[in-house]
């Protein structure tokens, strides 16, 4: 679909981005010490930190990806909402307080606290860098996809723009500005999602005029790479044609034409009994040239409230074991990954004590949980709004907003963009801090002053920002939600077993932790590199030649890491008193 860039959207976007950068410069002038740069001096109020958790965590994948997936495939998108939130209980109930008690700046601090081992620091630093980079990729891909309709820019321009702005934010101020940017962004995101959900409920469901479509919309490409829709040049000029939006109600329960305003429960029951027209993308080739068809697809509302519509989850409807294991593995990674993400873990050091760490996590869970409930209404609302772009599910939420008003579209798109900025800046702060503390000061043992440490972290942030830009360009077109699932799987395999074993198994040794972190990182990365999804989407090869039978590694690599820590700890156990931390 070709979009017109709205001047209102551009103005709102510029105001938000310039406001964010100005806030960074202002707060940056106040954070001079190393503790201020890396951990905001431990002085962030717990409530602000709790909302900032939401800002850090609710990434482009959460907002654009989940809402889009629900809009196109129904309940499957909500499975991510459930998994992402469930992981927060692991963080609250077993990780938050010990991490605050044991660490100072990075996740490696907590792991290394018992043994004062540079080996643990190096291993944990490596896992932090790998997880941060893998998690940065979908954020950059999301940014590139978002600026196309919002500002009329090319994909690569969006990726470079986000990377550059974030590096400026991080280099100017560090954790203080990042926290307040996250606080504002998290608050605005939940507020506007609530507004959007209320408007969806107030609009209710209305039967669309006209019969169900029978003919697909057909996109073809000529030798000059010009695109045509049903034989007419694709574009916005008078003699050109655009892709028609999809997603409408064909029939309502009891033959009604409209339901009028609905409540949260009646919306779901009415939708469950409705018949909905959606679109299905079919890709093929004709005379060696690509052909894309957006074929009409009529579905029952109740079928969209069942899992298994999206290709990622179709396995649970099958009898074979591997697709079922793939699904279980993904849900396990989402459950274990949250409490292992570096940019989430370092936020525990920005508050003053364990009680504040606990309270801020509870505020974070309440905010994030409320948002995830809203994704159900935004996603289903978009599904029947008659405004969805069949070529891009990520645009479902912004286009739903556009179906209400241009101003709401501008605000939602700008917030979605700052969502990407917020998450990317959190990840780059975590990775930059890890290079300064875990590698330069920890592994190499260099004695650096506060200012030198900050300088190292800033240089590292610029380098990581550059790598993120390149990775974002390389992974163009890759499924954003899938990439996020992999980042969670690596985090859960590398970090969670080591943290839990350190806290709950008194016989854990430093060799055990190092082995677990390294094995968890390497095995999950290798599994992903050799999996069917990578063969299909990245290498362009037949997935049946993949070395591993399914694409989500967690169900194998998380237990493997636990086992490695247990076995190596038994083998290297010293004689003497061993107590759990």
């Amino acid at each position: 679909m070709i979009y017109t860039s709205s001047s209102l959207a551009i103005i709102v976007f510029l105001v938000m981005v310039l406001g964010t950068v100005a806030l960074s410069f202002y707060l940056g002038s106040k954070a001079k010490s190393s503790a201020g740069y890396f951990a905001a001096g431990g002085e962030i109020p717990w409530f602000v930190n709790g909302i900032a958790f939401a800002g850090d965590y609710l990434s482009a994948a959460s907002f654009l990806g989940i809402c889009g997936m629900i809009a196109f495939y129904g309940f499957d998108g909500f499975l991510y909402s459930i998994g992402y939130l469930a992981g927060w209980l692991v963080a609250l109930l077993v990780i938050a307080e010990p991490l605050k008690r044991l660490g100072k700046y990075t996740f490696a601090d907590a792991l290394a606290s018992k043994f004062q081992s540079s080996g643990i620091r190096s291993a944990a630093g490596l896992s932090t860098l790998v997880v941060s980079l893998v998690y940065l990729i979908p954020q950059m891909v999301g940014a590139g996809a978002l600026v196309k309709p919002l500002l009329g820019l090319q994909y690569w321009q969006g990726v470079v723009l986000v990377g550059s702005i974030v590096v400026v934010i991080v280099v100017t101020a560090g954790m203080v500005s990042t926290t307040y940017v996250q606080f504002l962004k998290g608050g605005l995101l939940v507020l506007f999602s609530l507004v959007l959900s209320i408007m969806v409920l107030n609009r209710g469901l209305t039967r669309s005029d006209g019969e169900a479509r029978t003919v697909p919309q057909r996109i073809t490409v000529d030798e000059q790479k010009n695109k045509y829709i049903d034989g007419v040049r694709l574009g916005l000029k008078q003699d050109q044609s655009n892709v028609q939006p999809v997603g409408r109600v064909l029939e309502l329960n009891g033959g009604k034409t409209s339901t009028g305003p609905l409540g949260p429960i009646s919306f779901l029951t009415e939708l469950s009994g409705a018949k909905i027209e959606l679109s299905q993308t079919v890709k093929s080739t004709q005379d060696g040239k690509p052909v894309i068809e957006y074929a009409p697809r009529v579905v029952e509302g109740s079928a969209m409230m069942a899992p298994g519509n999206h290709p990622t989850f179709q396995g649970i409807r099958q009898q074979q074991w591997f697709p079922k294991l793939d699904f279980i593995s993904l849900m396990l990674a989402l459950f274990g990954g949250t409490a292992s993400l570096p940019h989430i873990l370092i936020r525990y050091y920005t508050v003053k004590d364990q009680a504040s760490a606990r309270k801020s996590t509870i505020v974070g869970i309440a905010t994030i949980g409320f948002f995830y409930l809203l994704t159900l209404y935004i996603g289903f609302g978009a599904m029947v709004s008659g405004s969805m772009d069949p070529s891009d599910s990520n645009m479902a939420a912004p286009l739903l907003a556009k179906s209400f008003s241009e101003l709401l579209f501008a605000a939602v798109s700008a917030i979605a963009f700052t969502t990407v900025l917020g998450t990317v800046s959190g990840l780059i702060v975590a990775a930059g801090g890890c290079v300064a503390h875990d590698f330069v000061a920890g592994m190499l043992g260099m004695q650096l002053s506060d200012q030198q440490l900050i300088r190292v972290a800033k240089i590292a942030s610029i380098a990581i920002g550059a790598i993120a830009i390149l990775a974002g360009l390389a992974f163009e077109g890759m499924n954003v939600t899938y990439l996020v699932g992999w980042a969670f799987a690596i985090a859960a395999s590398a970090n969670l077993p080591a943290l839990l074993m350190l806290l709950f198994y008194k016989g854990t040794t430093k060799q055990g932790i190092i082995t677990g972190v390294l094995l968890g990182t390497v095995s999950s990365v290798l599994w992903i590199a050799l999996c069917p999804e990578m063969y299909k989407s990245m290498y362009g090869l037949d997935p049946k030649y993949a070395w591993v039978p399914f694409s989500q590694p967690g169900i194998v690599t998380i237990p493997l890491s636990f086992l490695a820590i247990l076995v190596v700890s038994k083998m290297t156990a010293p004689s003497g008193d061993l107590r759990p931390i």
Partner: protein
Amino acid sequence: MHHPANTTEHEEIHVIAKRQRIGVILLLFFTLAYASFIGLCTFAYEWITQTKIAGIPLTVAYGVGLILLSLVIAMLYGLLSRTKS
């Protein structure tokens, strides 16, 4: 002989251990609810997709229920931790 500092430290260790125990119990309870949901979706697909509660498919009701349960457990833990401190 009574040492106030050691007593305080001992009490703190006791409180931390007790809070950790509460956290583990609550997490096990939630894990059971979460794992049951995944298990039903994977191995009892027909049943969970065709059962309805108050007109809403069980998949949606269970999913929303898990999110609400997370919020309740978080609040409960906050409350119990405050009392125990």
